[in-house]
């Protein structure tokens, strides 16, 4: 009788560790385009990994609460779901950053230090022809930046 009245009458607490942890994982997953603005967090995704770490810790704590004190906290079904989604987001992020984005062609034929840079003539932003010879003849150095036009 005591047990029945506990589950019927006792109000379970909202397991906010699970939700906040999940939000951190979401932030870790979606925020790279923001952190990519700064070289430190673009070259290696420190910020994103940190967000995932904090999210992971909170999710684990939330699971401990949900399963350790189920009469106090909710989340025995939702907890595992959110945790799995969090793991999936972290896994996918890591896969993209550490594998997919490294699939770059070897470019072994690109000019190396000491070799002549191949000559070319292309249109500039005003439609005028510009050749590499023009550029090298009137400057101390030419920084040639092949910008991947989008990413």
């Amino acid at each position, binding site marked *: 009788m005591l047990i029945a009245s506990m589950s019927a009458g006792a109000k379970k607490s909202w397991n906010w560790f699970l939700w906040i942890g999940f939000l951190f994982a979401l932030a870790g997953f979606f925020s790279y385009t923001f952190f990519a603005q700064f070289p430190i967090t673009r070259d290696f995704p420190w910020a994103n990994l940190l967000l995932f770490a904090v999210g992971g810790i909170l999710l684990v704590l939330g699971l401990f609460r949900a399963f350790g004190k189920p009469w106090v906290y909710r989340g025995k079904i939702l907890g595992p779901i959110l945790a799995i989604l969090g793991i999936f987001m972290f896994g996918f992020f890591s896969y993209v950053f550490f594998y997919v984005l490294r699939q*770059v062609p070897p470019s072994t034929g690109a*000019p190396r230090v000491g070799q*002549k*840079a191949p000559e*070319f003539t292309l249109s500039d*932003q005003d*439609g005028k022809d510009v050749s590499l010879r023009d550029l090298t003849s009137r400057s101390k150095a030419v920084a*040639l930046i092949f*910008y991947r036009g989008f990413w």
Partner: protein
Amino acid sequence: MPEINRRQRQKLGYAYTFLSDPKAEVIRRYDLLHRGAGPKGTDVARPAEFLIDPSGTTRWVNLTENITVRARPEQVLKAFDEMQGKVVLRNYGQYGLLPGAIDGALQNQ
């Protein structure tokens, strides 16, 4: 293509020259083609930076392993200083992320 470059250049406020290579001819000449990696499967260049001296010789090359990692302005400036044979105690930090940093710095030489 030049038209798109002009608008982008104005929008970003950059002062340096933008060149367009619509058929990826120069990209191929430099062996930087990344097949199908662009929007809708178009061919684009993998990111790469070169520093070329007045004789047309390559003096510094940056080919990163990861598409998102690019040369920072201070790296290019350092390569330029080394090329000049100078050990310059330049405050590279001030150039940071400012657009037109390379162009501005070279003009200040």
